[in-house]
């Protein structure tokens, strides 16, 4: 027996499977004891941002998100702790937030005699890198349809505009993408974790407008007054006159890009700037150019003294980005620039959007579903194990079969964690199907090999026979699900891809291992 076990673990296919398993576990990186609450996103201009807390990047792996461990030395263990404590804060008080990455001090602000939200949205510390779909964690999914068909690049800029808007609103943990169906209808799918339906409905369906003001006077508006926004390297990028520098412990990089406005807008600007005074040792005008998006001020640009009263159609817009390293500051500056350019180009949405579907999933329900899905998986696996054992009465067959199924699920989840694929209920159904087909295939292998005993042909032939049937079954599963990837605005894409991926992992990685393992175990 020992020799057989040694033989199994020195087999190349088994080693490949083990490597995949290790990689999958690294990708999932389970952290059973993760404390505190993770930061989902920060609200623009909030006291949290002022205190220097970093907006988490979407690309950051879940377990690497910054986590709040304590506020004012009171431990924060879950979302409820956090919101209970924060909602009781008094205005104009100093608050100390301890995270796993540092200690921050912020001051609460007052807004109409109440405490202003400190601006942090949190979620319970993730225990793994597997992203849970909306139906497993709660959130809102909105499917929008443009009133008229848009060319691909316009659709992308529409999506950029919407994303920008959602970010300004303070929502960053979101998926927004275009979707289509087999007949060619266009859709835009927005999924926002932990947001409720009411707050985003307006944000998405409103067409939105962009406006520049000087001293409360409208100068130009997005879209119709701006004739050109430069995005090429010769007139947009890091500002050569400012470059990068350090300021109060932070790296700052300036950017600039030029825009052209219509002559009428230029005249309006000339009129608005004529009576302004000079400030800042004469280099800038007393009122800045203020940029508003949907009536929210998003940026403020100082106007150079030389532009006073002149009807110039070319305007250089500048700004900056900060970061803890120069590289980070450059990236942030360029991102800020891109955002601003996007707003200027597509001030309002090119078309009206209709909300065709809204799903708002309660976080309570999501939590229940997840617990339940795990239990269903476990029960299904155990009962299959029992059936297999009753059928074969051989642990050498039943144990490898169940182990293979478990490894397939782990590799599949690892893959999902690696590419940031959301595991939702449909994906859970996909996993169940993949495991089901996996078991079916292994039964074929077991029967072909056991049946072949005593008959003339060799092991290789038996396994080849099994794979003939397995490949036919694999191809039919794949072709049956491929159309679903493209159908119906991609809402069942997750289901189809999870199933196809799971079946593929089985056929190409774990099935050969199973065949080899039982060959070693059963061969005399």
């Amino acid at each position, binding site marked *: 027996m020992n020799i057989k076990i040694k033989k199994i673990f020195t087999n190349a296919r088994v080693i490949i499977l083990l490597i995949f398993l290790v990689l999958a576990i690294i990708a999932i990186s389970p952290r059973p004891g993760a404390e505190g609450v993770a930061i989902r996103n920060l609200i623009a201009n909030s006291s949290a941002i002022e205190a220097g807390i970093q907006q988490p990047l979407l690309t950051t792996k879940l377990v690497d998100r910054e986590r709040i461990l304590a506020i004012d030395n009171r431990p924060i263990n879950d979302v409820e702790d956090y919101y209970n404590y924060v909602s009781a804060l008094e205005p104009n008080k100093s608050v100390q937030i301890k995270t796993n990455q540092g200690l921050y001090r912020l001051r609460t602000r007052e807004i109409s005699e109440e405490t202003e939200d400190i601006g942090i949205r949190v979620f319970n510390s993730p225990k793994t890198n597997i992203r849970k779909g909306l139906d497993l964690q709660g959130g809102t999914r909105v*499917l929008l349809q443009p009133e008229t068909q848009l060319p691909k690049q316009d659709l992308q800029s529409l999506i950029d505009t919407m994303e920008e808007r959602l970010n300004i609103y303070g929502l960053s943990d979101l998926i927004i993408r275009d979707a289509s*169906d*087999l*007949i060619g*209808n266009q859709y835009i799918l927005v999924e926002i974790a932990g947001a*409720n*339906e009411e707050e985003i409905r307006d944000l998405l369906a409103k067409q939105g407008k962009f406006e520049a003001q000087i001293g409360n006077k409208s100068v130009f508006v997005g879209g119709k007054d701006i004739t050109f926004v430069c995005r090429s390297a010769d007139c947009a990028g890091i500002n050569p006159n400012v470059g990068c520098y350090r300021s109060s412990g932070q790296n700052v990089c300036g950017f600039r890009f030029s825009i052209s406005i219509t002559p009428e807008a230029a005249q309006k600007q000339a009129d608005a700037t004529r009576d302004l005074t000079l400030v800042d040792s004469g280099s800038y005008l007393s009122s800045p150019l203020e940029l508003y998006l949907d009536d929210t001020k998003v940026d403020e640009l100082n106007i150079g003294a030389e532009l006073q009263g002149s009807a110039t159609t070319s305007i250089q817009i500048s700004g900056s980005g900060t970061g803890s390293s120069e590289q980070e500051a450059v990236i942030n500056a360029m991102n800020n620039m891109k955002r601003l350019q996007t707003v200027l180009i597509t001030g309002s949405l090119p078309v009206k959007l209709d*909300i*065709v*579907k*809204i*799903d708002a999933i*309660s*976080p*309570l*329900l999501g939590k229940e*579903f997840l617990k*339940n*899905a795990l239990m*269903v998986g476990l*029960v*299904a696996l155990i009962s*299959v194990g*029992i*059936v*297999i054992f009753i*059928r*074969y009465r051989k642990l050498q067959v039943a144990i490898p079969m169940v182990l293979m199924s478990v490894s397939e699920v782990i590799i599949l989840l690892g893959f999902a964690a690696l590419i940031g694929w959301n595991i939702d*209920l*449909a994906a*859970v*159904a996909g996993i*169940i*199907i993949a495991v089901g*087909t996996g*078991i*079916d295939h292994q*039964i*074929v292998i077991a*029967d072909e090999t056991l*049946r072949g005993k005593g008959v003339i*042909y060799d092991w290789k032939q038996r396994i080849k026979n099994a794979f003939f*049937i397995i490949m*036919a*079954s694999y191809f*039919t*599963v794949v*072709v*049956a*699900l*491929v*159309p*679903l990837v*493209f*159908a*119906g*605005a991609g*809402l*069942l894409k997750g*289901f189809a891809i999870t199933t196809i991926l799971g079946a593929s992992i089985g056929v190409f990685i774990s099935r050969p291992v199973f065949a080899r393992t039982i060959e070693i175990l059963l061969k005399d």
Partner: protein
Amino acid sequence: MDEETSQNKEEEQETQSQVSNEEKKKSFSFKPDLSGLKGLYEAQYKKLLIIPFTLLLIAILLIGFKVATTGDFINRDVSLKGGVTVTLPTNQEIDILQLENSLSSKFPANDLSIKSLSQLGKQVGVIVEADIGEENREEQIERLINEISNSLNRELTANDYSIEIVGSSLGASFFKEIIIALLIAFVLMVLVVFIYFRTLIPSAAVILAVFSDILITVAIVNLLGMKLSTAGIAAFLMLIGYSVDTNILLSTRVLKRKEGTENERFYGAFRTGITMSLTTLTVAISALIFTQSEVIKQIMIILLIGLLTDLINTWIQNVGILRIYLERKAKKLMEQ
């Protein structure tokens, strides 16, 4: 012909004893004397074919009747025809009938359906579906939530429930889309089967079995009065994948293998195929019992019905056709 049948019978009796010996050694200890049944199964395969074909015919008639009366071949739920679904998880005991009556009286113009959200037979919440149209949707939804909250004597905040809203044109286009996907999947499956077997009758038998599985399952689902969601139709796609498995196994074992007698190959395939179906059925049943998600529940019910139907269509229909095919082939060879 007569000669051949008697020859066949001899052969079959022989294998019959072989098989039952083998089975005694193996694990199948549940068997009472099945030899009568077995004899029937082996000798009367042509007559047995009446069962699957009658089922298929009834299914086609039922579906035809459904289309004639409702214009649709299935019952669509709100995700496929537009409307609103409110899911409310709660520990509170809710009398579904009472809630249904009280809501229906408030929304006489709408088609409402109230289901219990359950796990292990225990109620863990309630699902309300209403075909609320685009007109004044917001107000109507607000009214619906208020009425639910009144009926339950409970204040409801946005976090307490899930709500899904589907526009009616989107629902209709989803339905169309998934049916197209289903058709494409079927055509691709047909191609794979033909490429694999390259002979008309056995390939057609596999395809007929899958086709019957789907139609009979649709008919049963309709008889049960189930309303299908997007996930439900996706389950039919999975059914294509699953039901073709056992049929491919059967045809491969019987046609492409040379060892043993024909009958041994049929029974070998049968044993493997039944194990495959049993494990999948086990998964479907345990998921059905334990899940509280309507999505998964519907997928599993359809899979369950489909796999049971597949047992008949593989082991009676496909087996019967293959036996006739092999018989004719042997006859042709003899004639040459």
